[in-house]
């Protein structure tokens, strides 16, 4: 301050001085207020900062939690995929098991057919042939009561040659005039009824004609199945077909063989018969040849 202005201050009148002091006091007061306000603002900001930090922490935690959820979702999706794959495998396995069971059943059926065929053609003893046929009925089909009838040459009567189980009537020759046995004998068609279906007393549940060519030579009449066999199996019908053809052939062959002295003796006329058959075939092929070769 210059000496001139210092002198002016010293020389200022009293109200100016008062105004100046007022101004300074007011200035100081306002400064104090401003400072206090600044301090309050600072505190507020600090509080907000703390709050924001806390929120930030919370958000970070949530984000981390979201990551876990995302990870869990990924795991769930993977597990669901694995579950689907396992279910598919399980279904495929079940299908495979069903197929295997079917194959086993078919194999078992084929074995039954093979054994039946093998046993029927493995002997030329008439007694054994009849026994094998009975066993086939009992062991493979599961029949409990049955009769095997031979048909007489005129086709009018059935003579019982073998029987098993509880029969509806005493064993005796039967007249083939009417009824299921006569029908089967005449037509050569097997009659197979549902075992559970009601039927007339004494009526067989199955009549199986054994035929060679067009002639019925014998017949099985089945009256009862084993108690635990409630229905015919698929293989039973195949066994019946086999028995129908092979049984008849086996019976005829065994009966013819009974007259022979042995297996070689039984073949002594083979060449003659072969020649005769050839001759017959040629005659049939050339009807205008007049029988000359």
């Amino acid at each position, binding site marked *: 301050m210059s000496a001139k202005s210092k002198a002016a201050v010293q020389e200022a009148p009293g109200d100016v001085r008062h105004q100046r002091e007022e101004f300074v006091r007011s200035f100081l007061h306002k400064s104090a207020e401003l400072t206090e306000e600044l301090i309050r603002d600072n505190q507020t900001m600090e509080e907000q900062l703390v709050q924001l930090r806390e929120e930030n922490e919370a958000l970070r935690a949530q984000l981390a939690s979201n990551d876990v959820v995302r990870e869990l979702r990924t795991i769930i999706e993977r597990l669901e995929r694995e579950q689907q794959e396992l279910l598919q495998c399980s279904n495929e396995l079940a299908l495979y098991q069903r197929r295997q069971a079917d194959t*086993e059943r078919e*194999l*078992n059926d084929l074995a*039954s057919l093979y*054994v039946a065929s093998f046993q029927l053609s493995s002997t030329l003893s008439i007694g054994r042939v009849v026994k094998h046929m009975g*066993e086939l009925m009992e*062991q493979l089909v599961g029949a*409990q009561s049955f009769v095997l009838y031979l048909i007489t040459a005129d086709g009018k009567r059935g003579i019982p040659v073998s029987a098993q189980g509880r029969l509806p009537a005493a064993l005796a020759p039967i007249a083939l005039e009417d009824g299921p046995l006569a029908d089967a004998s005449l037509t050569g068609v097997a009659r197979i009824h549902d075992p559970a279906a009601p039927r007339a007393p004494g009526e067989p549940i199955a009549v199986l004609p054994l035929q060679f060519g067009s002639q019925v030579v014998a017949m099985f009449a089945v009256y009862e199945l*084993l108690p*635990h066999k409630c229905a015919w199996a698929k293989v039973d019908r195949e066994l019946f077909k086999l028995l129908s053809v092979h049984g008849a052939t086996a019976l005829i062959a065994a009966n013819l063989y009974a007259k022979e002295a042995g297996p070689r003796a039984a073949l002594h006329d083979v060449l003659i018969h072969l020649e005769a058959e050839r001759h017959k075939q040629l005659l049939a092929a050339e009807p205008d040849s007049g029988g000359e070769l």
Partner: protein
Amino acid sequence: MTSYACLVVEDSPMMRQLIVFALSRIKNMTVTEADDGIVGLKKLAQTNFDLIITDINMPIMDGLKLVRKIRSDERHKDVPVIVITTEGSREDRERAMALGASAYITKPIQAPQVIETVKELLKI
């Protein structure tokens, strides 16, 4: 590899053949056949078997007598025995089980049933 020897005692050739067929489906199984209990006992005297399958109804010596003989013989008393019965002959089956048979199979026999019973007894 473990091998198994089985004795099949059955008078019916048809049944025997079916049982042998079923057993042939089991790996390393050798089968000896006998058509009667007496023949079966003779085979038992000659060889050790891991399993015996016998029919109950047989001429000369039936399956029940055979089971009794097997169980009274120190050599074979622990060998599993399967008896083959018909569904109707419940008494025979119960007697066979009481005499020491290990299991039974009812006629008409099914190969899967035979295989399953044999595998169960031999713990295959």
